[in-house]
Each structure stands twice: as C-alpha cells, then as structure tokens.
C-alpha cells in the first residue's frame, strides 16, 4: 500500500519537475493584444524572432478580434495594442487608455467568393456596387459577425450600399461569429462570398474553389496602428519594454522587414510608419 503511494508520489514529482523549468523561464517579455489577421498571416513568426534577437525581449501575442483586443488593453491585460480600426484606436487614446497612436503598415481587404460567382461581381472595381449586386441576387455572404476590425469594415460597406443586412441575417446573410479563418472555412464549405484581409487570405490553405473577385478599390484600404497602453492608467504595464518594441517596429529596421515579408511570393503588408520627428 505505502509502496504504491510512494510510486504515485514519485510520478507526480516527475511531472512537476520535468516541465516547471521550461515553462517558467524568466526572460523579459511584453504582451501585445493584436488581431487574428496579423497572427494568421505568419507575420509575427517572421518578425518577432529578429526583435527578440536584437533586444532580448520576448513578445507574447494575444490574437483576438480588434474589439476584444481593445477591451483586453483597456483592462490592462496587455502592454501594447496593434489592431486595424482607426476610429476605435483613436477613441482608445482619447479615453486615456493609450498614448500616441502610430501607423505601422497597411494592406487591403479583398472580396472572396466562389469561382462560379453567382452574383457576377468579378472585375467590379467598385466595392459598394459589388455588395449591392450580392444583396440583389441573394447570394450567400458569410460575415464575421464578431467585433473585429474586418467586421466593422464590412458593416460600413453595407451601410454605404444602403443595405440593412441585419434584416437578412440567417437567410443569405450569415454571421459566423468567428475569426477570419473559420469564416473562410465556412465560405469555402458553402460556396459563399466574404470580406477578408489580404494577408489571412494569402496564408489560408483551405481555399477550395474560392478566389479573389474584387480588389484594388481604394475604399478597401486596411491600416494597422500601434498604441502604447498608458502606464498612468495601468501602473503594472511594462512601458519601457513596450516602447522599445514600438520604436523598433516603426524604425527603418522593423519597417524594412515588414516590407520584405512574402506569403507564397506575394507581398502581404506595406510598412508606412512615419519617420520619427526628432
């Protein structure tokens, strides 16, 4: 009886010791609340090791929708916010949660749809007209339906098209309430249209017979911004380390790396931080 207990105790001890030292290695780190689009694009996997190599600072990315990322940062659970919905970002700063929003990079949104294109929107150069055409033909449109930057963008496009999508929810307009990837998976399965950021689309493997149908309209511009979470509001935040990261990603070094990132040979992001005014 006691023999078995000691074996069990030993096993438990082994479980604890074997992992504890690897799991709790104490190098300095910051937490960045960011979006699934940047994470799924693979940009961070490419960018962050270089930053860590230069500075010794680890960057922990929490990838959620823009709305949730902002809430996280407001609660003080992140040191830096890197998202893509400028008016929400400016509101975040105005409410005193963050200091000084900076542009980091941009890319664009694209309308994805089945190659059969039931709403015949291919080669439209006007997004609003394409949206009107989808609504008129009642072709299936998969919406994020969450609080993400992409969803906010999509809603503003419907609004400009003068279509009240809420009244069609559950019919041709379907809200997945999920991330971009999950929504693309659903669109792929249902042969539906959707709005995606270009980087997530490029990296997405389960394309099926989906393809880009509309792109290049200036209204599809997608700007990413970075904000330092206010230490005055949340004294525990790692302001100095976080500022090091912001300085680096907006520096010629960081910007050049962003510009050189390719997904299957295609450019995913365009760096556009303004040179720092001395």
């Amino acid at each position, binding site marked *: *009886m006691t023999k078995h207990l000691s074996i069990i105790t030993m096993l438990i001890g082994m*479980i604890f010791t074997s*992992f504890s030292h*690897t799991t709790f290695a104490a190098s300095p780190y910051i937490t960045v609340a960011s979006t699934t689009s940047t994470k799924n694009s693979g940009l961070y996997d490419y960018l962050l090791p270089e930053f860590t190599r230069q500075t010794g600072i680890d960057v922990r990315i929490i990838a959620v929708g823009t709305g949730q990322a902002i809430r996280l940062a407001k609660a*003080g659970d992140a040191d830096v916010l890197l998202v893509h919905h400028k008016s929400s970002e400016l509101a975040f700063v105005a409410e005193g949660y963050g200091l000084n929003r900076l542009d980091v990079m941009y890319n664009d949104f694209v309308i994805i749809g089945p190659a059969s294109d039931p709403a015949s929107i291919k080669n439209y150069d006007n997004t609003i007209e394409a949206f009107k055409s989808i609504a008129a033909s009642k072709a299936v449109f998969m919406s994020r339906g969450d609080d993400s930057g992409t969803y906010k963008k999509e809603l503003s496009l419907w609004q400009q098209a003068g279509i009240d999508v809420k009244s069609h929810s559950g019919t041709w307009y379907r809200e997945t309430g999920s991330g971009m990837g999950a929504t*693309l998976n659903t669109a792929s399965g249902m042969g539906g249209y959707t709005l995606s950021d270009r980087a997530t689309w490029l990296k997405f493997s*389960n394309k099926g017979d989906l393809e880009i149908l509309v792109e290049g309209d200036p209204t599809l511009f997608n700007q990413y911004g970075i904000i330092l979470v206010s230490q005055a509001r949340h004294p525990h935040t790692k302001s100095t380390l976080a500022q090091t990261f912001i300085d680096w990603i907006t520096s010629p070094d960081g910007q050049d790396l962003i510009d050189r990132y390719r997904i299957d040979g295609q450019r995913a992001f365009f760096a556009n931080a303004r040179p720092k005014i001395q």
Partner: protein
Amino acid sequence: MNDFSTAFGTAFSLMINLDSALVEIVGLSLHVSLTAVLFAALIGLPVGAAMALFRFPGRSIISVILSALMGLPPVVVGLFVYLLLSRAGPFGVLGLLFSPTAMIIAQTLLVTPIIAALTRQVIEDLWNEYEDQLRSLGAGPARALPTLLWDGRFSLITTILAGFGRASGEVGAVMIVGGNIDHVTRVMTTSIALEVSKGDLALALGLGIILIFLSIGVSGTAFLVRRMAEQRHG
C-alpha cells in the same frame, strides 16, 4: 478525402521526427492537464466521498448541482477565470492571466465537479454494500471515508481518467485564459484550433491524431498500473 491521408502522414512524420515544437506543445499539454487533474482529485475525491457518507441539510440539492456542473461548458469556466484574473478583476494583481497557471486553475475548476460527482457514486455504492460490516467494526462515516476511498481506488482511477479526458480535450477554457501564446501557453487543442483557422486542415487533423495517441498512452498507463496492483493485492 485527400486530407485524411495527408493528416496521417503529417501525424506520423511529426511523431517520428520528434518535432521540437510538437514536443514542447505536448509537454505543456500534459503539464497543464495532469496538474489540473491532480488538484481536482485532491479536492474532488474527499468532497465526493463526504457527499456519499454524511447526511446534512441540502445534501441532495448540492448533489444535483454537482452533477449538473459536470456539463459546464469550458468557455464559461474560461470566461469566469478570465474575469477573476484580468488586471481589472479581483485577482488581477497576481498577473496570472495568459500563463500556464491560469490554464491549470481553469481546468481544475472544470474537472473537479466531474471527479467529485463520480466519486460520490462510487463511494455510495461501496457504503451501501459495506455499511453494516463497517458499523459492526465500530467505523462510522468519518472512519469509513479513507477506507472506502482506498477500497474503491480501481474504480476511482477511471473517474480520474474521465477528468483527464475532459481536461486534455477542451479548448474553450485554455484558449481564453492562456491566449494560445507560442512557446508559453500553446497546447495541443489550441494549436489545432489555430491550424483550423489557417485553413491547414490536414495539419490540424494530424495534431488531433497525436492527441488521441496521447490519451491512449495515458489511459493505457492507468490500465497497466491497475492491472499490476490488482495482481499484487489479489
């Protein structure tokens, strides 16, 4: 159907090559879930046994609630722990959010009701069978508790395995409180969710296959321990 064959191929090549990222993720999965199950057992076993043996007011209501909590959605537990550990929450000062510790706390909450409710059933059955005998030896409920826990140890291993199954298979709670941070809080299930969201269904399924092997490994070990112990004690 091509995805299936690719998935098996991916799973085997990852396992045979002992892919270092995979080893790290599997290690963290085991660390989090086994630790959570350990704590859940330390709480759930005595609580479940006490529920079976002692008579007190409100006992049946608590029993019903305990059974109902077995079906608690992981997302809800995750959200609950998230709100507690967030900097804006009551335990925010500890800075535990997005750490393996937060994941262990969430899974412990998730698994404890399962172990407690199943233990209650096991011990109640044993108590019904041996009550007269134990009482004749002068053992009331309090004295019988450790005896019955030891007596029921083989059935209780299954109870604990059910708890481990719940912990190692859930994604909702660890995703919210862990944040799926690479090298820090990324476990098997959150990796699978990530690969699905990248549309890499074959890799996601491959990881799922490895997760199943892992579960087989854990329950196989438990089976062997039980077999050996049974042989030794007759």
